[in-house]
């Protein structure tokens, strides 16, 4: 699915995310909660106010996990195996892939906002494919 060229583009863009994991992650989550309020249903235990410590902490966690996926693009299934179990058996984000798609859209918006013109069509394509692949792996064990 991901070509060699895609992987190069993804790794290059990820360089720009370094150092901003918490900011980008928090912003993506914030945008997701505002744009798609139904996603808040997965976080009844969180303080969802803007800039909350929980959102920042969780945003950082999510982006670090994505960073791990970037390092393991040749073997996403294995690299994300634990998270796949978590999403399938504990979190049960429903329906599979759809809610993750909403986060993918918001994360891409964050990248576009911060990278502007550098979020070229080619990068956009590669990253969209990458996030779809990650979402597919996370939904692998649903049934």
């Amino acid at each position, binding site marked *: 699915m991901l070509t060699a060229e895609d992987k190069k583009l993804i790794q290059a863009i990820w360089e720009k995310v370094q150092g901003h994991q918490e900011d980008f992650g928090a912003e993506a989550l914030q945008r997701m909660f505002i744009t798609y309020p139904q996603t808040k249903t997965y976080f009844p235990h969180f303080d969802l106010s803007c800039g909350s410590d929980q959102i920042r902490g969780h945003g950082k966690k999510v982006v670090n996990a994505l960073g791990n996926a970037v390092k393991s693009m040749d073997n996403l299934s294995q690299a994300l195996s634990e998270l796949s179990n978590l999403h399938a058996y504990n979190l049960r984000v429903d329906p599979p892939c759809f809610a993750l798609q909403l986060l993918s859209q918001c994360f891409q918006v964050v990248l*576009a906002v911060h990278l502007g013109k550098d979020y070229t*069509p080619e990068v956009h394509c590669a990253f969209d494919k990458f996030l779809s692949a990650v979402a597919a792996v996370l939904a692998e064990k649903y049934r």
Partner: protein
Amino acid sequence: MVHWSAEEKQLITSVWSKINVEECGAEALARLLIVYPWTQRFFDNFGNLSSPTAIIGNPKVRAHGKKVLTSFGEAVKNLENLKATYAKLSELHCEKLHVDPENFRLLGDILIIVLAAHFTKDFTPACQATWQKLVGVVAHALAYKYH
């Protein structure tokens, strides 16, 4: 009937007033064809769509992108009456063009990313939320006459 708050209307019209419809439309359509290549099936007569560079430079893509986004302007002018505004286009997309309405959602999401890249920090979360709502209702209106 969709309800739009005063703030939402303001966010829609202020963003719209700053968009270069030709550039933005061309880019959105090009990205749709690049990021979701199966959408190229609707554009067999557009000539060279063999690479991102070819797609971006393709004059038919540019022209059609402009047409599509210009039509989007009708939504901005008729927020209270989108179903009526898009009734004819909905029938066209169903009966003549045979476009799966899922593609309207894809184009909507792409447009959001184009706006984000263009406006960067000014494309605030409130802005994104309003515009995602707008592209969603436009997609819904375009799918409304499907049978």
